[in-house]
């Protein structure tokens, strides 16, 4: 055995030992039938699904939902967001099964099953989109911290240090627990929505009427496409599957993985609804509310809810940027490791897997650096991420559904008939919406 191979095997063994310890704890809890053990088991298996869904409510998402509520109120988007949550669940559940059955990440599956062309295509798109999305996360952190008088360079540096700490210092299970604690902060928008004293009758009425304020205009179409078209971001597929594998979930854990994903979906939709309700109640209808940016919305919330409201919203924005930055950084590292066959686990210390950690760290540093460049074309970068996602998303979804129908890989866990019908309908809808969304970005006057 060569020295390199021996080293690689020892790394994989060390990683497997740490994972086996976690699996042993899960197995021990599975054998007990009392309610306390069942609860502990459920809590232990929470993670990839909740983190993926909460990180989807990232800084960019918070800004989009807040601006949507400000511009259009609560009429249409409350039922629409529930539908988009269902779509997200159906797609993400497939990544749980794929990861648990194959014990391989999404990038590794595409690379190994469909060859290096599609492997490179997916990897390059994913990494570019991740870096661009990370930029929006650091913008969110910077905007949120500015409410507390913290200059951009300090807030971005703190965000970077925290991101690097979580990636480098913590092994998978502790990294996941820390991330889950941060994810709870996303719920801060719920009490904020309650502080807005919304008209509950109007909220309920939204389900019955699906009312579109101002009619179906081109601008409204754009907002619809932005909300639906980005319901499932490419990084989510890669991230959740990699997390399932790194956590060591197996076919026995698929049920808990589904519960985890369902809880995450419910939390994601709840927070999105809270944001729409908050700005739909507090900001919508004011002169110019159609075009308010996030800073204007923050100031208005401060005026109407008091400084506590403004600061809570700012904290929520910082949390949303932080949790998404953690997820995106890990997603980049996992995908690179899977594509090139490097040791790829958060369980390994930096000195044993530097090639795994560097891509994530470099992506975060680039994104943070761009935010600090004066007059950086942030609007263009935001458009670029949407265009890349609209080109990449159909491919990512197609690979997912093909892999889930691959009996050789999935055995009895292959997609069932109803799962294929619903997932093909969803993929068709997302492909059409992504395509139209891409067109509207490229040709703003198309509709």
């Amino acid at each position: 055995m060569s020295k390199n191979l021996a080293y690689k095997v020892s790394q994989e063994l060390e990683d497997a030992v740490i994972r086996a310890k976690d699996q042993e704890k899960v197995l021990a809890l599975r054998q007990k039938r009392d309610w306390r053990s069942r609860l502990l088991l459920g809590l232990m298996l929470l993670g990839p699904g909740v983190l993926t869904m909460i990180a989807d409510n990232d800084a960019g998402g918070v800004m989009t939902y807040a601006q949507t509520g400000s511009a259009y109120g609560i009429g249409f988007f409350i039922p629409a967001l529930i539908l988009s949550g269902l779509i997200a669940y159906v797609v993400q559940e497939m990544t749980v099964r794929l990861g648990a059955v194959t014990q391989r990440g999404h990038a590794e599956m595409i690379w190994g099953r469909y060859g290096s062309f599609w492997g490179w295509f997916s990897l390059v798109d994913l990494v570019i989109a991740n870096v661009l999305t990370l930029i929006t996360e650091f913008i969110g952190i910077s905007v949120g911290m500015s409410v507390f008088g913290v200059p951009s360079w300090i807030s971005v540096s703190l965000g970077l240090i925290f991101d690097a700490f979580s990636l480098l210092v913590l092994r998978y299970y502790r990294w996941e627990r820390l991330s889950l604690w941060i994810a709870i902060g996303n719920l801060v928008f719920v009490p904020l929505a309650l502080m807005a004293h919304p008209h509950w009758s109007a909220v309920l009425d939204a389900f019955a009427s699906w009312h579109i304020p101002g009619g179906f205009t081109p601008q409204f179409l754009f907002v619809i496409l932005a909300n639906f078209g980005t319901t499932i971001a490419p990084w989510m597929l890669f991230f959740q599957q990699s997390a399932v594998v790194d956590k060591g979930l197996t076919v026995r854990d698929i049920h808990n993985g589904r519960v985890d994903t369902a809880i995450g979906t419910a939390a994601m939709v709840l927070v999105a609804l809270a944001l729409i309700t908050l700005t739909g109640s507090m900001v919508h209808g004011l002169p110019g509310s159609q075009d308010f940016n996030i800073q204007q919305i923050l100031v208005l919330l401060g005026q109407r809810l008091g400084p506590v409201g403004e600061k809570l919203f700012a904290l929520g924005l910082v949390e949303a940027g932080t949790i998404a930055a953690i997820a995106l950084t890990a997603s980049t590292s996992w995908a690179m490791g899977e594509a090139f066959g490097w040791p790829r686990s958060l369980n390994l210390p930096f000195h044993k897997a530097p090639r795994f950690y560097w891509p994530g760290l470099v992506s975060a540093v680039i994104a943070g650096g761009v935010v600090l460049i004066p007059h950086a074309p942030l609007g263009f970068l935001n458009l670029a991420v949407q265009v890349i996602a609209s080109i990449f998303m159909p491919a990512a979804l197609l690979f997912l559904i093909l892999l889930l129908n691959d009996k050789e890989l999935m055995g009895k866990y292959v997609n069932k008939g109803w799962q294929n019908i619903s997932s093909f309908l969803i993929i068709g809808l997302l492909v059409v919406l992504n395509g139209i969304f891409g067109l509207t970005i490229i040709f703003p006057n198309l509709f």
Partner: protein
Amino acid sequence: MNTKVDFSLVTLETSPAKAPLTRAKLKGWVNVVFWGLRLYIFLMLVLVGYAFVHGTL
């Protein structure tokens, strides 16, 4: 390294799925779908290039 760990868990849970990953043979409707995907990507790249050149992006 903790010697109390039950290594059987590692093999039992993961080894069946860790068989070598072989390249899928694309045939029938799957092949058609892949060509549709190539066409979609090509058209989108042409549109992005057009928009970039004409300053709408």
